[in-house]
């Protein structure tokens, strides 16, 4: 914890490292090169994500929602009529761009490798649970960071829950929790999900009447399609290079005292704060935040569920999109679980709204903790 505070208070060092990296890069040698190169990519990714989020919001995306993996998958699921919540139906090009951007870079760097078979059905269920937690809080960990960057103090409560959930997850990992090995798979397996999302994107443009489109609410707020898609491609590619993950930063700091990914976490928040101050959209408060509610307990528990579930999955929702783009079919199944989970949340009244959480949602979050505990108990390997 002390280490955390030390890092938080020393963010200016970050900029110094940034300059240092470029210097090291020019020399191309040096013992610490690998470490710093990683920091460079992670921080660059964080800055680009933060800046793009502010840009996308200025161009029409919902407030503090330049990106939100959970919300955008939910919107896309709604557009495909997997649920019928009229205010959240829109095919989000950001999601599709991120998967394809990651796939393109992975193919170029010869890291595209179809593999899977690491407890797919269990992953699917954990994904549904993570989605229930995210829609209780109203955002994935990335949107939580963007909300903090917009001055939404409810998201700070969410962050505390998130860190708590990750901590619980790391205890399970240390206790031998594993979803077992993945194995090499066919090319068809690896490209199936990327192909499916491209098909959705093409159809949504060519035959828009196939889909449902929100006329009001968050689903009706969006940046121009082309810009959203290009930003998605760019961010997806960068995340593939840097292995950016909102969970890994905290998890690795706790488990291995490895703070490299935490720089990216901080870079997103700092960039968003600066960006929002420039565009005049920084408002420090609990009340009246865009697409958010003020129920502290359930914001905390929702994100705790997301943190714990994401550690079990080996990465946050954003990271799952990127891995799916790299041909990881377990992550593709996880992303499919997010889609189904989003539909379940809205079909059964589990998702919160600006008015607050629902009773069904509270029951589902508690059930989610039970499900994760059972999965944890049944998937331990003794050393």
């Amino acid at each position, binding site marked *: 914890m002390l280490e955390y505070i030390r890092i938080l208070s020393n963010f200016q060092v970050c900029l110094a490292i940034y300059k240092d990296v470029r210097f090291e890069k020019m020399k191309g040698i040096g013992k610490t090169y*690998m*470490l710093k190169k*990683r920091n460079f990519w992670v921080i660059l990714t964080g800055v680009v994500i933060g800046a793009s989020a502010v840009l996308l919001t200025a161009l029409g995306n919902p407030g503090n929602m330049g990106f939100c993996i959970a919300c955008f998958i939910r919107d896309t699921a709604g557009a495909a009529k997997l649920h019928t919540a009229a205010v959240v139906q829109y095919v989000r090009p950001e999601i599709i761009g991120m998967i394809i951007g990651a796939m393109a870079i992975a193919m170029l760097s010869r*890291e595209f*490798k179809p*593999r899977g078979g*690491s407890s797919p059905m269990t992953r699917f269920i954990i994904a549904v649970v993570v989605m229930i937690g995210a829609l209780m809080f109203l955002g994935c960990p990335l949107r939580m960071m963007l909300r903090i960057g917009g001055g939404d103090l409810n998201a700070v409560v969410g962050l505390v829950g998130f860190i708590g959930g990750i901590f619980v997850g790391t205890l399970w*990992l*240390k206790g031998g929790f*594993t*979803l077992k*090995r*993945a*194995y090499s798979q066919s090319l068809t397996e690896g490209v199936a999900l990327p192909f499916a999302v491209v098909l959705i994107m093409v159809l949504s443009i060519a035959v828009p009447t196939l889909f449902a489109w929100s006329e009001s609410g968050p689903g009706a707020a969006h940046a121009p399609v082309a810009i959203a898609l290009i930003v998605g491609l760019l961010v997806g590619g960068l995340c593939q290079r840097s*292995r950016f993950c909102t969970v*890994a930063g905290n*998890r*690795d700091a706790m*488990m*291995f*005292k*490895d703070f*490299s990914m935490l720089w990216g976490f901080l870079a997103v928040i700092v960039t968003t704060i600066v960006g929002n101050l420039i565009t005049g959209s920084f408002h420090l408060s609990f009340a009246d935040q865009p697409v958010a509610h003020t129920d502290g307990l359930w914001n905390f528990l929702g994100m705790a569920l997301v943190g714990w579930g994401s550690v079990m999955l*080996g*990465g946050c929702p954003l990271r799952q999109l990127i891995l799916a783009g790299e041909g*990881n079919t*377990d992550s593709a199944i996880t992303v499919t679980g997010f889609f189904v989970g989003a539909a379940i949340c809205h079909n059964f009244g589990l998702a919160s709204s600006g008015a607050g959480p629902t009773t069904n949602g509270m029951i589902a979050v508690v059930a989610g903790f039970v499900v994760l505990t059972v999965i944890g108990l049944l998937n331990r390997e003794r*050393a």
Partner: protein
Amino acid sequence: MNTVDARGLLCPEPVVLAQKAIKGAPAEVTVLVDAVAAKENVTRFAKSRGYEVESSEENGEYSLKLTKK
């Protein structure tokens, strides 16, 4: 020689296994991984714990030889 097979495992599991393997500070441990991200993570972890890392690749699988400095 001690060998840890972390092939097919998603991070951070390869690092957890590497962490367990070097607990008694052995002179040499080999870690097998099959993803670039896992290779980077194990390498970074081992270096931070005072190990030299030598990696060799075969058919997309990496063998990381950790030697105590």
